């Protein structure tokens, strides 16, 4: 007999609290990382849809935030995969999803859909920034006293340009057509990417809370809501940082300015852009919020009215165990309060940003209540489980599935964005219309 007690870890035991009759193998197997996974893909999809509103439907007012949303969506992309990799027990075998996809499983599509989507976003960025890239190549080649960063950027731009140096009006015109096509193609793919994340849950017939055909639709709507909200909040924050940095000449906080070798951003202009974009965007936020809320409440009413076998257990979870999380945090603070804040007349930028932050929190709570709430009751319907998130990790497992893993996932997109912004200045303004 082999003694392997030392390295033996029952996955889930560290953070699951069982109550009453729970089967021996039941634990909260899907914890914080699986809460973050649909949350992050939702942000990716939502940010992309926001940028497409401008490119496809020619909503001119969204011009500035659209470019930012596109680049930020690209920065979020690798992070949508991160929770999955952190969650896998065998992360190095994650490639198997691409190698031997079993298409009867909702997860199997992830590799392919995710890559398709990544290609579309990357190609769209390429077309949007092609003119800038070519101009930068010319500018940096001619420049005599290049900084170290500029010497690094030049070969990057040369590779990224793929040798397409033609920036005649005709060539740029075909770029615009390509952008429009990709943005239009991207909307269904983004919706599919996220809708199928909803399908992953909705198709689990063993789980009474998850199994509903509404799940993908609810996920898409809340994805767009959270994506737009994140764009508003982060756009505002980045603009604040930029204003602050522009005033004090702290160039390292303005990576795009750094890349171009100068600040040249007037503070007043930043302020007017910020106010205008944030207010307009929050109107769209309101529209998508209405759709998301309607569906979620419909789902809840339907479950209570039909009251099938599982309802007794679900009711216990919804109205007793998770009452605070669902009705106070998710619906109250996360939905109705920002709804009112956005509807009341005289919307200021600051109020829109606070409302958007609450929306972000609300959507996060919704993901939490779906993923963790779905595991809050036993398959026996006679017992309950509670997830107590590990705060202080004592091994790699409690780090990944606890606060540490959560913070790493949340921080990473901003780090990626910082560097991406050097190559593709997301806040660049040009006078041409697309």
């Amino acid at each position: 007999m082999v003694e392997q007690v030392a390295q033996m870890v029952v996955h889930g035991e560290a953070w699951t609290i069982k109550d009453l009759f729970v089967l021996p193998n039941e634990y909260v197997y899907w914890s914080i990382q699986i809460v973050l996974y649909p949350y992050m893909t939702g942000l990716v999809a939502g940010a992309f849809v926001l940028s497409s509103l401008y490119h496809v439907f020619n909503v001119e007012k969204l011009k500035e935030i659209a470019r930012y949303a596109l680049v930020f969506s690209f920065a979020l992309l690798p992070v949508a995969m991160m929770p999955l990799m952190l969650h896998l027990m065998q992360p190095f075998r994650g490639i198997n999803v691409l190698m031997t996809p079993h298409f009867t499983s909702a997860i199997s599509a992830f590799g392919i859909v995710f890559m398709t989507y990544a290609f579309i976003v990357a190609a769209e960025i390429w077309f949007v920034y092609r003119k800038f890239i070519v101009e930068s190549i010319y500018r940096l080649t001619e420049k005599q006293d290049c900084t170290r960063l500029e010497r690094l950027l030049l070969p990057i731009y040369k590779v990224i340009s793929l040798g397409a140096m033609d920036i005649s009006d005709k060539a740029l015109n075909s770029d615009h057509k390509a952008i429009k096509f990709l943005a239009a193609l991207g909307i269904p793919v983004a919706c599919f990417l996220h809708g199928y994340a909803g399908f992953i849950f909705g198709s689990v017939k063993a789980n009474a809370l998850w199994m509903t055909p509404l799940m993908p639709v609810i996920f898409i709507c809340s994805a767009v809501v959270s994506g737009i909200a994140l764009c508003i909040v982060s756009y505002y924050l980045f603009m604040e940082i930029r204003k602050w940095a522009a005033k004090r000449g702290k160039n390292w906080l303005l990576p795009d300015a750094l890349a171009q070798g100068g600040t040249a951003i007037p503070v007043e202009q930043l302020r007017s852009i910020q106010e205008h974009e944030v207010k307009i965007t929050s109107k769209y936020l309101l529209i998508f919020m209405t759709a998301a809320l309607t569906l979620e409440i419909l789902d809840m009413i339907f479950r209570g009215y039909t009251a099938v076998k599982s309802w007794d257990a679900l009711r216990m979870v919804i109205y007793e165990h998770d009452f605070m999380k669902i009705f106070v945090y998710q619906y109250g603070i996360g939905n109705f309060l920002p709804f009112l804040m956005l509807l009341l007349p005289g919307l200021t930028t600051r109020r829109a940003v606070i409302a958007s932050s609450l929306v972000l929190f609300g959507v996060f709570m919704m993901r939490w209540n779906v993923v963790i709430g779905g595991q809050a009751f036993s398959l026996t319907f006679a017992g309950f489980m509670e997830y107590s998130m590990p705060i202080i990790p004592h091994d790699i497992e409690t780090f990944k599935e606890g606060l540490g893993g959560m913070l790493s996932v949340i921080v990473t997109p901003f780090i990626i964005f910082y560097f991406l912004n050097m190559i593709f200045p997301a806040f660049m303004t040009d006078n041409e219309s697309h």
Partner: protein
Amino acid sequence: MKNHVWRPLFVVIVIVIGILVFRAFYVPSDFGVQERGYTFGYHRLSNEQEWKDYPAKHKGNDYCNECHDDKIEELESAQHGIIPCENCHGAAFDHPNDPEKLTIDRSRGLCLRCHAELIMPSSGRNDIPGIDPVEHNKGEECSECHNPHNPSLEDM
């Protein structure tokens, strides 16, 4: 000159071809759709044989009988004759080679698995003589009074 529009597509095609080539070498050759179809039988075929070759630890009374036939014959008619040898004597593994000697579980807890008194109407448990583990000679091993193979005190 419109051809630059297709360049991202060429990059994508190269990446996809690269993945397919990698796949050809990465995926075991016997991986595929087997008897139960794509939904239930998509797997690496040689894994079935790997599971068939998984080492067995319990060998059963017949295996014990190969050497200990004297004991088995005597004990099969005893009160506890229905209990397989390995339940108390431990799994055989490769005994007598490895382990040379089996570790017998003589603990009170082992006996209590059946003989702790529970009220279980409509279950076979009710037909087994039971004791209250808290009251009945607490702290002592059952085998001090009872012969584990033939535990009735009258027969001793």
